[in-house]
């Protein structure tokens, strides 16, 4: 059945709804992926513009969230590939972001720090599974990677985090 969530009468996407629904979680995920708030804002902006321009291509082929996350991950990967990007001094680090709000609990901060220290291939599966609540099959579709590979990466990501974190509530 074609997926026709949130289109207007002229078949244009309802961008207000899309931005409202996905904006903040997308921004936080991109921040954790890119480790830079300004880059994350650029990535989110790029993502939504691509969503707007290509919305007609996705309908009926995938869940909207899966499709949007795939665009966002590819945008983040493009940013990471760029050698220039790696030389830019980040304006706001995680420490700066944390200092702007009331200090979060120590275990929350520790989790974020440890997630950001993971290699990108582990970080992305972890974020998609635990933060974006995606299934393995959906993550495989987003990353265009076999499900078996996703399972292995998720397992290894958990193992790496488990070593670093204590006192967490595990399944």
């Amino acid at each position, binding site marked *: 059945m074609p997926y026709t969530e949130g289109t207007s009468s002229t078949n*244009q*996407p309802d*961008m*207000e709804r899309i*931005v*409202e629904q996905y*904006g*903040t979680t997308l*921004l*936080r995920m991109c921040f*954790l992926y890119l*480790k*830079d*708030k*300004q880059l994350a*804002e*650029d990535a*989110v*902006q*790029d993502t*939504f*513009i691509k*969503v*707007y*321009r290509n919305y007609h291509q996705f309908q009926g082929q995938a869940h909207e969230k899966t499709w949007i996350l795939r665009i966002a991950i590819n*945008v983040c990967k*493009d940013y*990471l590939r*760029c*050698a*220039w*990007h*790696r*030389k*830019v*001094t*980040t*304006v706001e*680090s995680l420490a700066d*972001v944390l200092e*702007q*709000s009331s200090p*979060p*609990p120590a275990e*929350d*901060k520790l*989790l*974020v720090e440890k*997630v950001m220290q993971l*290699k*990108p*291939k582990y970080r992305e599966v972890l974020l998609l*599974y*635990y*933060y974006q*609540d995606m299934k393995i099959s959906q993550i495989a579709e987003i990353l265009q990677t076999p499900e078996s590979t996703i399972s292995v990466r998720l397992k290894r990501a*958990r193992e790496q985090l488990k070593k670093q974190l204590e006192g*967490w509530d*595990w*399944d």
Partner: protein
Amino acid sequence: MGLKKRNFKDSIDRCLEDVRLEPAYRQRILEQCTPEYSCSTKPRFSTQKIFRKVCFVAATCAIILTSGIGVVAASPSLQQTLNQLSQEFLVLLSPVEGTSTSEGIRMEVLAAMRDNDVLMVYLTLQDIQKQNRLDGQLELVDFSAESKKDGNQQCLFSHGEVLWYDSASQKATLRLVGQAFGGLDDQKISLNIHSFLSGKNELPLINCGVTLAEIAHQAPSAQWVALSEVDGYSSSGEDMERLSQQVENGTMPLLQSGGFVPSVFQQFSWMNVEGVAITTGNTLHGKISYDDQMGRFNRLALYLSDTQGNVLDTSQISLELESYETDNHHRYTKTQEQVLVLPSELPLEEISLSAQVTTYEHHIEGNWQTNFSVEDASLQTTTTPANVKLGGWNVETITISPVGITLQGHGDSSQDFHGPQVDILLKNGSYVQSNSSSCSVQDNEFFCKNLFALPIEMEEIDKILVNGTEVPVL
């Protein structure tokens, strides 16, 4: 055992509570998601997607300025310092007075010019402790120029170069060029320099004293693993696309162990050549690790040479396997694998392994910071239509100002984009070459900006050449 999803998500959201889509930012996004919004008339702000194969190219600039009489808008001291520049150029500059001293090195910002999306800053660095820590080849490492755009901090793309160095006063004069895709709005500029390198030494080509046949013989049991992930890579040569594709597909083999270790590299304490070996696919792999001190900056490049010692022209790809970040979020290569495609026309007995080593004597860290204002110079610009094919892309307009040239166009986003070579021919028959270029590709649209080392006079332009194709100037 696994992490509970709700705990994970709740923790992230609690920790990043202030990272959210603010109303003004949301509105800007929505403004661009309308049929009426045209990116061809207004470069998208803060869009920093840079085509991965073309970032910054710095080339030697050969520019001949016509002599003339102009109004000197600068103070005598400024003119004295910049007395090697032409009068026409000085008119475009705004004097700036800003100094900062750290680690016994004094930074003085002399002049700046701002127009549209370009910022040029002229400054000096002087070793006031007379410790010979500066020279004519110093390289800025950690530096930035920042401005504000729509209330947000905007980090400008920038590169710096030494224009001249006076050994008597131990003072270097530098130019810093910043570029912001999407335009510069604010007059206020914040200039920061945190580190630089000096004492650059490029050693003569090192003959490793071993042929590829000997390497193959001494490393028959080299172990290989499939590439799973790289932090980055760069390639060159006619096989660069194939090599890049191998990396993207995960079919590039990596040297795991059992490689030959040339003894000639043991003299360099900042790096470790873990092994060199040859694959059955006729590529030579060299695995190198760097320490976290001068290993961040010193470099080893592997080459192949013939029996006469001539360096062979080979395709190569350099894989950044591991990197580490410093506290200020700079990334440096920790482990690298250099891959060279073997020439098919020579037997392994006639090919030797060589290396180029570049070292730096000083890595100076400090905190040089100054803020200043510079008004928009509102330079004259000319936009001319163009129709120049770049593979699957087409240059549609060219905008030229005294300080740079911008190419804009559209194309097939499934086709690779390669930044073009742009030359400006003056009426006196001389060519102006760019000393920096950068390109931004977004969906099916691109912008390429080439900056000139020094401003040129627009009325002296005769032709513009894009990849050798002439574009008449209106």
